[in-house]
C-alpha cells in the first residue's frame, strides 16, 4: 500500500518532466527539424500545392494547438501513422521494441554482471597484480571504439577468414538457435566495449564501501572476510549499482543501439528513430520522445523502490530524511 501510494505520487511528480522534455523536443522538431513538405509536393509545385500539403501535414496550425494535440496523443498513447510508411506508430513500436530488447538485453545483462564480478575481484585484490591486470584490460577495452569492436568480432567469428560461425548480418528470431546465431556477435561487441566502463565504475563503488567505518568495526570483532564482503560491502554497494542499471533501461528500450541496428541491418527501434529524424517523420519522433521521457520517470520510480529494498534508511513515506 505504501509502495502503491508512493508510486502514484512519484508518477504525478514526473508529469512536469514529461511536459518539459516533450515541449523542448517538439519545439526543436517543429522549428529546426526537417520539413517534409518538399518531399511530398513533387517537382515544380505551385504555391497552392505547397499550402495544401502543409495543411495536410498540419504545419500551418499554430504551435500551441499542435503541442496540445501532442499532449492529447501522449495521454491516449495514439500517435497516428508514420508519414513515411503510413504504418500506425503503435504497430511500429510494437514491432521494433521487442527486437531492440532481444538484441540489447544479453549484452546489457552480461556486461553488467561481468562488470560487477570483475570489479569485486579487482577490489578484493586492490593494489595487487590481479587488480592492475583487470584495470589495465578495462582501460584497453574502453579505448577501443564500438565500431572497431563490431568489425573485429565480425572478422573473427563471421567471416571466411575467421571461424565463420555466425551470419554476417541480419536478424532472425524464429528459433532459439537462429536467435543465438544472430545475437552473439553484437552481444560480444557490446560486452567488449561496455565492460571496461562498468568494471571501473563498479570497482570505484566497491572500493569506497570497503573503506567504510563499519567494515573496520566488523573486522575489529573478528567477523570473517567472506561475511564482511557480502554483508558490509556488497549489500551497501547495491544502491549505486542498482541506480546505474535501472537508469540504463530507458536507453535500451527506446534508443536501442543505433549503431548495432544499422550496422547489422536489424529492424529495431534505434533504426526507426534514426530514419524518423532524417526524414522528419513527426508522428514517430513524437512517440519516441514521449516514451523516453515517460520511461525515465518510471526508471526513477523503480530505483527508488529498489533503494527501499536494499537500504532501510530510505523511506517511501512523505517525510524524506
Amino acid at each position, binding site marked *: 500500500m505504501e509502495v502503491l501510494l508512493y508510486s502514484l505520487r512519484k508518477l504525478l511528480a514526473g508529469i512536469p518532466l514529461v511536459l518539459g522534455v516533450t515541449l523542448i523536443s517538439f519545439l526543436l522538431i517543429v522549428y529546426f527539424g526537417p520539413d517534409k513538405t518538399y518531399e511530398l509536393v513533387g517537382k515544380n509545385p505551385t504555391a497552392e500545392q505547397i499550402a495544401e500539403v502543409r495543411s495536410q501535414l498540419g504545419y500551418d496550425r499554430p504551435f500551441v494547438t499542435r503541442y496540445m494535440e501532442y499532449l492529447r496523443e501522449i495521454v491516449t498513447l495514439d500517435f497516428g501513422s508514420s508519414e513515411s510508411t503510413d504504418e500506425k506508430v503503435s504497430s511500429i513500436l510494437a514491432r521494433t521494441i521487442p527486437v531492440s530488447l532481444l538484441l540489447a538485453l544479453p549484452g546489457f545483462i552480461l556486461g553488467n554482471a561481468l562488470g560487477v564480478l570483475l570489479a569485486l575481484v579487482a577490489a578484493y585484490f586492490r*593494489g595487487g597484480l590481479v587488480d592492475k591486470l583487470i584495470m589495465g584490460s578495462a582501460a584497453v577495452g574502453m579505448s577501443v571504439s564500438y565500431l572497431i569492436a563490431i568489425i573485429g568480432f565480425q572478422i573473427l567469428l563471421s567471416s571466411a577468414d575467421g571461424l565463420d560461425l555466425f551470419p554476417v548480418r541480419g536478424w532472425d528470431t524464429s528459433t532459439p538457435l537462429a536467435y543465438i546465431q544472430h545475437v552473439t556477435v553484437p552481444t560480444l561487441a557490446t560486452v567488449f566495449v561496455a565492460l571496461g566502463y562498468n568494471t571501473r565504475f563498479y570497482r570505484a563503488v566497491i572500493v569506497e564501501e570497503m573503506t567504510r567505518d563499519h567494515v*573496520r568495526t566488523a*573486522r*575489529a570483532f*573478528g567477523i*570473517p572476510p567472506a561475511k564482511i564482503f557480502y*554483508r558490509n560491502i556488497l549489500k551497501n554497494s547495491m544502491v549505486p549499482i542498482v541506480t546505474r542499471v535501472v537508469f540504463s533501461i530507458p536507453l535500451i528500450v527506446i534508443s536501442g543501439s543505433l549503431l548495432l541496428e544499422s550496422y547489422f541491418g536489424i529492424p529495431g527501434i534505434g533504426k526507426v528513430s534514426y530514419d524518423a529524424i532524417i526524414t522528419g517523420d513527426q508522428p514517430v519522433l513524437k512517440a519516441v520522445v514521449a516514451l523516453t521521457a515517460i520511461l525515465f520517470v518510471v526508471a526513477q520510480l523503480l530505483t527508488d523502490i529498489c533503494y527501499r529494498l536494499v537500504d532501510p534508511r530510505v523511506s517511501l513515506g512523505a517525510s524524506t530524511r
Partner: protein
Amino acid sequence: MPAPLLEVNNLVVEFSTDAGVVRAVDDVSFSVAAGETVGLVGESGCGKTVTGLALLGLVPTPPGRLASGSIRLDGQELAGLDDSSWRSVRGRKVAMIFQEPMTALNPVFRIGNQMIDVLRQHQRITRRQARAAAIEMLAKVGIPAPDKRIQEYPHQLSGGMRQRVMIAMALSCSPRLLVADEPTTALDVTTQAQVLEQMVRLQQEFGMSMILITHDMGVVAQSCSKAMVMYSGRVVEQAPVTELFARPRHPYTGGLLASIPRIREQRIPELPVIEGTVPDPLNLPEGCRFADRCNKVRDYCRLAQPELKPIGRADSKVACYVPD
C-alpha cells in the same frame, strides 16, 4: 606482582606514503595490568589511534605495516599472527570501540543482527541464545526497551544510543582488554558523561582492562589509574594518574595540564593549545621532537632523542633531558 595482561615492547608502525615512510608509532612500550584502565593522550596525529589499531592487527595494510615490536596479550604473542588467528583474538580477547558512532555500524542490518553475528562468531550458541544475550547486554549499557531496540536499524538510534550499542557489542564476548578510541568525543556533553560513567562501571563489573584514548585530561583524571602521553609517535611520559597530575615531569605534559578547564562541564573537543606545531613526520629532528615548542630547551636537547627512563619513586617514566 603478576605479569601484566598486555605488554607492548618497542612497537613500530610505519606507513609508506608517496612522500616517504612515516613512522606513526615509533618505539612504543607500555603495559596494562589486569583490570586496569590506562589513559592515552596526545595531540591530534600523534599516533594514538594507530597504536590502538595495532593491538587488534587492524593497521590498514598497505599502506601501513607493523614494522617491529612485540604485543603480548595474556601470554600470547600477537605481532605476526596470520589473519585467521587474529580473527579469534579480535572481539574475544580484545575489542575496540571507535570514535564515530554514526558510521561504525552497518546501516543496512538491524543492530540485533549485528550483535548476534559477533556473539555467534566467538561462542557456540544458537541464534536464540545470542539474541537473549544481546538484549541483556543492551539493557546493561542502559538502553531502554532493549527487546524493541534490537529490531531497529542504526539510523533509528541517536549517537549516544549507537555508542552504547557499540559498547554492548564490545562487552558481549567478555574480552580481556577494551580499546576505547575517543568513545565520547562525537557525543554531546551530557551524553558524554553518561556513556563514560556507564563504560567505567561495566569495565569494573567485567574485570576488564581498558585503554582509553582521549583528548580530555579531565576524563583521564576521573577514570584512569595510569596515563601515557604521546607526542609525534613516541611516548614522552607515563605515570600513575595521581603522580602525573601532581607532578608532570615532561614539559609537554605540563603544558597539557596547565590548560584543563576548571569547570567540570566545560569540556573541550581538542587538547589545549601549546605554541608551535608538531614536527613534520617526514622530516623529524635529530634530537627531542618537542624541542621547538619547549620553554626549557637546552642545546643538548637537539642532539639526540631522549629515551623513556624511570624517574622518581612511583612507577613513572619520562623522555626528557630536563624533567621537572
